[in-house]
């Protein structure tokens, strides 16, 4: 068939398809017409019609392809299912990495905490004296009872969100550098927190410090551990890809570990909320804060161990 005849007989179909695509309309006949145009493209190529015509059909089909194969996002239902079923399942699937990540994070935290008890000067190895004084001023026991107003609470809420979630994201993304970035953020943050906790305990500021951190500690620390596990998964895919090529292994690991990161975002949002509006509230007695903090630890751990087990699909 000559190209002219071909163009003349199908022109109308191409224009119709293009019209639907321009309006992004969902028509019942769309898939059928799209497949016909796919066939036209294949024919045009096989018959060596002009590059211009092939290019035109190629782009038309490309747009149709993107229209037909887009994913329908039912975001709200997905989020509910994620929190209720998928997230704890994914965490359990990665229990080895989560264990490794906790070991690195809590290990360095505890190690530093104990070391500071024996050698208080260690605190200056991670922060300068100005920062140490600032930190001491923040948890000065005399200041207990001094309450922030709601506006400052909101200021801190913004600060915690930006700061903590960014740390979570960096811990994850750093994993792609063959785990190095993740290891750095996990160990550094562990040492830093151990240092702060150890120093404040050593100088006798325990009550204001622990009553402040108790509430949000479960969500925040576990979120960092999970971000670390996700980052380690990325890096390990590159270091030990198994039977896949490195690129494929990385892609698999990324597609799975991103779900942990969704969970990390939710946890850190909750943690920032608790930290800004509950932990900072000096009117609440430390005993209540300890109880709530302990309960949250139990809830978080129970959530990861128990939730989402029944549905087997």
């Amino acid at each position: 068939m000559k190209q002219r005849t071909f163009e003349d007989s199908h022109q109308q179909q191409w224009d119709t398809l293009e019209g639907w695509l321009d309006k992004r309309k969902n028509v019942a006949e769309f898939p059928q017409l799209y497949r016909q145009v796919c066939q036209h493209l294949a024919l045009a190529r096989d018959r060596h019609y002009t590059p211009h015509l092939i290019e035109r059909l190629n782009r038309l089909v490309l747009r149709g392809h993107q229209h037909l194969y887009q994913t329908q996002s039912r975001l709200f239902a997905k989020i509910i299912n994620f929190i209720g079923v998928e997230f704890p399942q994914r965490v359990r699937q990665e229990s080895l990495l989560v264990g490794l990540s906790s070991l690195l994070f809590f290990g360095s935290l505890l190690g530093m905490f104990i070391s500071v008890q024996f050698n208080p000067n260690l605190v200056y190895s991670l922060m300068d004296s100005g920062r140490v004084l600032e930190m001491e001023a923040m948890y000065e026991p005399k200041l207990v009872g001094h309450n922030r107003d709601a506006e400052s609470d909101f200021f801190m809420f913004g600060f915690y969100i930006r700061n903590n979630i960014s740390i979570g994201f960096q811990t994850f993304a750093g994993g792609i550098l063959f785990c190095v970035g993740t290891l750095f953020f996990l160990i550094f943050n562990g040492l830093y927190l151990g240092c702060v906790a150890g120093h404040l305990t050593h100088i006798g500021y325990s009550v204001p410090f622990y009553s402040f951190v108790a509430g949000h500690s479960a969500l925040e620390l576990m979120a960092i551990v999970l971000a670390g596990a996700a980052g380690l998964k990325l890096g390990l895919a590159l270091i030990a890809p198994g039977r896949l090529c490195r690129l494929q292994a990385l892609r698999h690991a990324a597609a799975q570990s991103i779900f942990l990161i969704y969970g990390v975002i939710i946890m850190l949002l909750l943690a920032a909320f608790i930290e800004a509006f509950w932990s900072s509230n000096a009117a609440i007695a430390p005993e209540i804060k300890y109880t709530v903090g302990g309960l949250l630890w139990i809830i978080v751990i129970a959530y990861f161990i128990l939730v989402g087990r029944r549905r087997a699909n």
Partner: protein
Amino acid sequence: MLDTTRPVETPEGIELALRVAGPVVRALAWAIDFGIRIIFYIALSFFLNTLGDLGIGLLMVSVFVLEWFYPVLFEVYRQGATPGKNAMKIKVLHESGTPVDWSASMIRNLLRVVDFLPFLYGFGLVAMLINEDFKRIGDLAAGTVVVYQEEIPSLKKANSWGDELPLPMPVALTEQQAIVNFADRVQQLPPERAIELANIVTPLTGKTGEAGVKSLCQFANGLI
């Protein structure tokens, strides 16, 4: 052929060609997006400054959200293109040629921090230059490509090449294709180059110069 098209096979059993976008056009798109965000932050800070600490808190939340999720939201809800990408006529797709979903977009945009290292997308540029599809590290992990947006060219008018003219002698298929391709592209060529090319086949056309170009187009017209 050495070019920047990437073949994708679709479930319909045909092969599509994606034109991948290079580092320069992507850097420009990024710069436009960056500029838009900066202007937005400045405007927002003027407004939120009047609200005291509450305002600064809100500002920090919005800076955080925009810095990390600005590309994700646009890529998922605006057919793969942030305003900057739209201005440069490029967009993000899965390698399969389908629109990006949440996970792929999140992966490629979270890994942006690594691409940005050691400064101004150093790693990203190196990664783009050592693979054939100009993928930065985030694209490699997410399985996405940045391609040019496809505008559908209109069909050429039937007689834009002049009258039909039969070929004076039998010509092999590949040579027929060469003639048609020549006629298809002649308007994009400088006139001197078109004449130069047409002169090569003077034995066929029996003419030189403009007249040669014209008869080649007429032969092509007769062929298709």
